[in-house]
């Protein structure tokens, strides 16, 4: 009973954290883009009572802390027009189909560690299943159905092109993504060790060197594929607002559009979490340095915060890249995936497989 309550509490916390991160990454995106472009960014929203507090109120207003709240309310209260030419039920279904896989992947993502009375560490995770990584990949790839369905159900040309593009792009890059992670699985499951595909065991292997040091090429490939999978620039083919109006969500408005928006950023949060679990040592402090926090509740909070810090850094990196690189042309995206990344990923896999066999 106690376990169930704990899990329920943890699930609520997790949803809060991921949704909060997603909402505030929208603010982060707007603020960072503003700074890079020599602007100030959102600095007008304020909250009735808190705005009156001297110093803190204006500071929060200047940082745009209340902007996500205002944005969310705007999405909620806007009129929700449904164009006459859409395919009804599928049109309604698509945003849900995009958001659900994006959020359900967090079930197998560990967010830190907690300690029992004996000082033994357990991962903070909702479901530590053996096939953690597999589960994430299979669920995340379901997200593309939502996008394709949105493009098709909108029944107009630009969303349709967006849907087709996202279909082709996501399938190509999923291949690269899967192949770039395989060397890690091979490494973790070296002969004589059976750790499975659990993300927890992958993190536990990184007590010493992080995988970004031992397998930099895998990390690079995974990062590129992650950018493509989350539809972030320079791979935002499905959206490409300058050529496809808004891509697959052109015909959506109000809260349905909000769903797509939220899903994109939830994807980013989960993607950053997975990258830091796979390559940045999860909640481990620094390579080869044992975590300085004590084996207590305080230590748990420290490990979670450290992990969240890594996620936030990666989110910042996502946004930073977005305002640095221009969008690829569609054929370049495909050429990059099939012509360059896929062979490199294969060679990488073979190299590390031989290396692991040689070492052990």
């Amino acid at each position, binding site marked *: 009973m106690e376990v169930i309550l704990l899990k329920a509490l943890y699930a609520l916390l997790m949803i809060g954290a991921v949704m909060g991160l997603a909402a505030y990454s929208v603010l982060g995106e707007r603020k960072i883009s*503003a*700074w*890079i472009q*020599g*602007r100030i960014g959102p600095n007008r929203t304020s909250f009735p009572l808190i705005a009156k507090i001297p110093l803190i109120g204006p500071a929060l207003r200047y940082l745009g802390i209340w902007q996500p709240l205002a944005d969310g309310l705007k999405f909620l209260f806007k009129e929700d027009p449904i164009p006459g030419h859409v395919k009804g039920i599928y049109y309604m279904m698509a945003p849900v189909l995009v958001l659900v896989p994006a959020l359900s992947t967090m079930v197998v993502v560990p967010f830190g560690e907690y300690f029992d009375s004996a000082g033994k560490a357990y991962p903070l995770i909702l479901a530590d299943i053996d096939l953690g990584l597999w589960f994430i990949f299979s669920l995340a790839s379901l997200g593309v159905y939502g996008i394709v369905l949105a493009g098709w159900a909108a029944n107009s040309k630009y969303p349709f092109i967006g849907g087709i593009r996202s279909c082709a792009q996501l399938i190509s890059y999923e291949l690269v993504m899967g192949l770039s992670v395989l060397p890690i699985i091979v490494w973790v499951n070296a002969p004589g060790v059976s750790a499975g595909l659990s993300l927890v065991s992958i993190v536990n292997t990184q007590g010493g060197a992080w995988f970004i040091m031992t397998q930099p090429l895998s990390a690079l490939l995974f990062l590129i594929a992650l950018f493509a999978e989350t539809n972030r620039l320079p791979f935002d083919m499905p959206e490409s607002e300058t050529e496809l109006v808004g891509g697959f969500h052109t015909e959506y408005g109000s809260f349905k559009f909000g769903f797509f928006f939220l899903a994109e950023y939830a994807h980013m949060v989960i993607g950053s979490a997975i990258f830091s679990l796979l390559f940045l040592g999860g909640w481990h402090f620094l390579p080869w340095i044992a975590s300085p926090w004590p084996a207590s509740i305080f230590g748990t909070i420290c490990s979670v915060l450290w992990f969240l810090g890594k996620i936030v850094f990666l989110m910042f990196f996502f946004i930073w*890249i977005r305002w*640095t*690189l221009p969008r690829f042309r569609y054929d370049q995206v495909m050429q990059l995936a099939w012509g360059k990344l896929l062979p490199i990923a294969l060679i990488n896999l073979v190299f590390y497989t031989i290396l692991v066999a040689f070492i052990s």
Partner: protein
Amino acid sequence: MATKVLERKPLTWAEKTYLPQIVHGLKITWKAMFKKPITLQYPEEKPELPMGYRGIPTLVKDPNGREKCVSCQLCEFICPPKAIRITPGEIPADASTAHVEKAPKAFEINMLRCIYCGLCQEVCPEEAIFLQNAFSLSGYSRQELVFQKDKLYELGGTLPDTHHKWDKKKAAAAHPHHH
């Protein structure tokens, strides 16, 4: 003219991966992040307007606070979009400015028609109409945007002018000087 032929070197292996270029780009955007914003917080901060800026046309008073316009209607006639309409009126004979003879009874500028060309300012022999610095203009009705005389004077205020043309005329009339 001598032309200089630049040697176009083939890309190195590192350059072909694009990664050094991406890192360089990231450096540039990183630096840009810490530069001072170049934007203005508009309603609170106003841009610095250059000399000779042509804002809303306004009527101005002379340093004595008297109406300068003598309703000669030159501005009305030159106005390309026909935005100005003047109804001339006489100055009562017992007024201190009676020697000016005429003043506008009504002076309307239709700001929905005005094109801010400044021809009225240029043509005015009395220097009574000026395009000043106010530029943000809005209203709830068309009627509201047809500026009347009192509104135009309120916008214009008094501009310094050292001619004192009508004072001199009055003095000349009081002390006729014969050659």
